[in-house]
């Protein structure tokens, strides 16, 4: 699993690739919580995520709630089919703000 951070129009874009599981989700959590201290908000680009388990989704949930408490934006972008199935199982597709593209998400948060 790799996570790279870029900045677009004052919004932090976290691009995650690979598999997010019990061993790698703490890195995702730490990176997202750190980025929430900066900029207008955080977008998590999940296009490169082949698999995400419950610990990964829990990290996204915690980051989203932290963003809300700080008055920052938080969105998911390019959620591929497998992660979307996991989100839907716990009905979290109705909770997260999800955009089809990173550009759409940046325009919304910037």
């Amino acid at each position, binding site marked *: 699993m790799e996570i790279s951070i870029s900045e677009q129009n004052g919004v932090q874009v976290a691009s995650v690739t690979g598999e997010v599981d019990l061993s790698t989700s703490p890195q995702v959590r730490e990176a997202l919580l750190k980025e929430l201290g900066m900029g207008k908000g955080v977008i998590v680009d999940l296009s490169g995520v082949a698999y995400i388990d419950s610990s990964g*989704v829990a990290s996204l*949930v915690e980051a989203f709630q932290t963003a809300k408490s700080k008055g920052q934006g938080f969105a998911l972008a390019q959620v591929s089919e497998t992660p979307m199935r996991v989100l839907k199982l716990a009905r979290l597709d109705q909770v997260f703000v999800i955009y089809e593209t990173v550009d759409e998400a940046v325009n919304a948060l910037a």
Partner: protein
Amino acid sequence: MSDTSNPQPSNVIEVRDLVTHYGPREILHGINVDIVEGEIMVIMGGSGSGKSTFLRHLMALQPPTSGTIKILDEDVWNLSQKELFALRKKLGVAFQGGALFSSMTVGENIMLPLHEHTKLDRLTMEIMARMKLEVVDLSGFEDLMPSELSGGMIKRAAVARAIVMDPRILFFDEPSAGLDPVVSKQLDELILRLRDAMGMTICVVTHELESAFTIADRITVLDQGNILFVGSVEELKKHPSERIQNLLNRRSEEAEIDADEYLRRLTGDKEEAEGMPR
């Protein structure tokens, strides 16, 4: 016909020539069966057919007298203790009676495997446990004790614990036993959702024909320690064997979500939740 763009799913469990004894008595007489990735395999059979013993073998809990059991490409009884422990982390089990610890809350019961096997942050664990309670339609029950739950709720809480580690293979022992038809149907729907969403391979031991016909991709019928049949529901129904025909001749609305409230519930954000209408 071959289709290289769509490879065949692999076997996640392979049982070869499995023989088991209890004392001098042979219980399983040379069982051969494969369980394929992503399928729901139902194991049926009358009392004394050996299905509970067979399930214990499939869960890597009991060594056979002879024969081999491969789970996720690992020859189970040739593994070191450490390797066996690592393999078992990939297996989830929902026991017939729930097997929840009565001295622990529902939430603590569900987090137990996470405490045992991971070093995740406490809040991450709590969110995971609450997510699983949402999946089994028990949201908000994490602080209750098992004694405060109904039979159907205990079964669902046990499922939440069994899936908290996102296992590759999930085992159910008599999931519908003792449940009314509506709750039983909800549990069947849950089993199907878990397979579809998580791609889990699921292995269910049940007596309930209706449940088996609803959830099974394939059914294995055990009879007196032998495999009588392995195949689809349709193949089973049409099977000419009198023994099989003798065996054969004996619902859930999704609530609308308040996204903010749901998020607070998952993160345990009590501060923000205060003053909110319940």
